[in-house]
């Protein structure tokens, strides 16, 4: 459950990131976040995982006010949130495996299970064969998929995906989308920031539209791809990405 109450974010330079946004996102919901470049999508997500603090208003995640969370509690909040950052944010001195398995590792999972888990997650994004590469050795889309795998590995309660398919070809985008829908079906709240109108219209669900920081539109779209209800029987067929 994510609740925003009159949230405004003004950056130190005076730029308006988000302006008086109030909304609720129920547990387990899948929400698309859209809007022009600079509309405030990333700001919205950053406020939820505490990378930025709101200038005004309150944000509640699972009932806890994250805008007044003491610094030493923030890590525990973040462990329950998987984030696919818009600029990937992989750790350059760590391999794909180490990047993806970072959180399980510091949570004390033993090495064998780390490997297994990382391999399984990387396989889902089609990157198992690059498990020992370093980020600089990957193409843009491959880096993006590592970022996705890292966000998914710990089965987070909430998944924030900031433009996760911007560097992917349509087939892979479809795969990733199906992955996120799948995770959503298993109970994870998903906020999916994207410019891809095509993708949004095909899937449907709730769509939030930001315009210059304000919530311009919040509507439920009927999707044609496969909907949360219709797909309880299993994944829909789709062409393979490679």
């Amino acid at each position, binding site marked *: 459950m994510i609740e925003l109450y009159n949230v405004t974010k003004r950056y130190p330079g005076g730029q308006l990131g988000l302006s008086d946004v109030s909304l609720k996102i129920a547990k387990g919901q899948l929400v698309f976040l859209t809007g022009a470049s600079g509309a405030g999508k990333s700001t919205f997500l950053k406020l939820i*995982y*505490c*990378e*930025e*603090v709101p200038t005004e208003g309150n944000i509640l995640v699972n009932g*806890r*006010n*994250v*805008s*007044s*969370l*003491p*610094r*030493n*509690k*923030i*890590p*525990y*909040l*973040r*462990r*329950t*949130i998987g*984030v696919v*950052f818009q600029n990937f*944010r*992989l*750790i*350059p*001195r760590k391999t794909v495996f180490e990047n993806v398995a*970072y*959180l399980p*590792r*510091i*949570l*004390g999972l033993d090495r064998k299970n780390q490997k297994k888990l990382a391999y399984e997650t990387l396989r889902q994004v089609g990157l198992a064969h690059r498990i020992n590469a370093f980020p600089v050795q990957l193409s843009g889309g491959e880096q993006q998929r590592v970022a996705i795998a*890292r966000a998914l590995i710990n089965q987070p309660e909430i998944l924030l995906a900031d433009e996760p398919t911007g560097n992917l070809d349509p087939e892979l985008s479809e795969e990733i989308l199906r992955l996120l829908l799948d995770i959503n079906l298993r109970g994870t709240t998903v906020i999916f920031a994207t410019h891809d109108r095509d993708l949004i219209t095909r899937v449907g669900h709730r769509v939030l539209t930001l315009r210059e920081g304000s919530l311009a539109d919040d509507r439920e779209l009927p999707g044609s791809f496969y909907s949360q209800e219709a797909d309880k029987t299993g994944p829909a067929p789709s062409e393979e990405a490679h």
Partner: protein
Amino acid sequence: MTLVQALAYFTREALLNLVRGWKVSLLAILTITVSLFLTGVFLLVSNNLGAVIDGWRAESKVVIYLEPGAESQAIADLEETLRQAPGYERVALIDVVTARQRFEQAFPSMADLLEGWGEEPLPRSLELSLTTERLQDPNLGTWLESLRQNPVVMMVDDDRDWLDQLEAVVLVLRGLALMVGGILLATAMFTISSVIRLTAYLYRDEIAVMRLVGATEFFIRGPFYLEGLLQGLVGGSLAIGSLWTIFSVAKSQSTSLLTSILASEFLTWSSSLGLVALGGLAGLVGAVASLSRETLESPKAEEPPADWNEEDS
């Protein structure tokens, strides 16, 4: 995660960081090495000079010249008094013949001079050796003055001038020592923390990402602290190693006054280990200092909220 697991994790991460960022690590280690080597050279020289000066001190004697006609019994009494004195080490009677021999040895060309003088041209004397502590005792002067009251004593030559000069030299050397040593240590610490602070800058994006994916400060800092500690220990060991190598070469190759004064004894085991430990400490302190400033833009805690899901370690 247990503490043991955490330590294993820190070690692995620290070693990986050292290896993967080997250029930067090497730089840090060499800087520590140079600083500690310098400190080591300073310690070595200072210790050896100290030993030389202590030797000089030990040689200094109080000479009590006796009246020409003094009787043996009176002299024996005086000797006894000296034996009872605090800080007594040795006393020796220099008779007329010995005194003359010494003079002739020291100034052979002036030997003729003695011929013209009476049958006891040079007075007999008692040479009194005192402990170093006693020689430095400010009350020594008063005691020597009291000796002068004894009728058999003609004059007391207490090496006061010589000691004063020595004192000045020692003071200068010790002063230099303190100053240079202090500055060296401060520089070493400063350099090490500069280097580690720069390393932290170098990896600040990495650290930011770790924070963003949910790592606690404990897990972020641990490997860096250990890395600093390891760099310091390696740097310290290299410093001691190279100091020992240079010391051995200098000692075996040269027989000059300079090396014999400056490099007669190597540092003690405890000093050597202390230096290595100092390196480790410097690395650790540098790491702690360089990471402590890194603040995360985080909401100010207004009220302590309920615990989040779990706590580690």
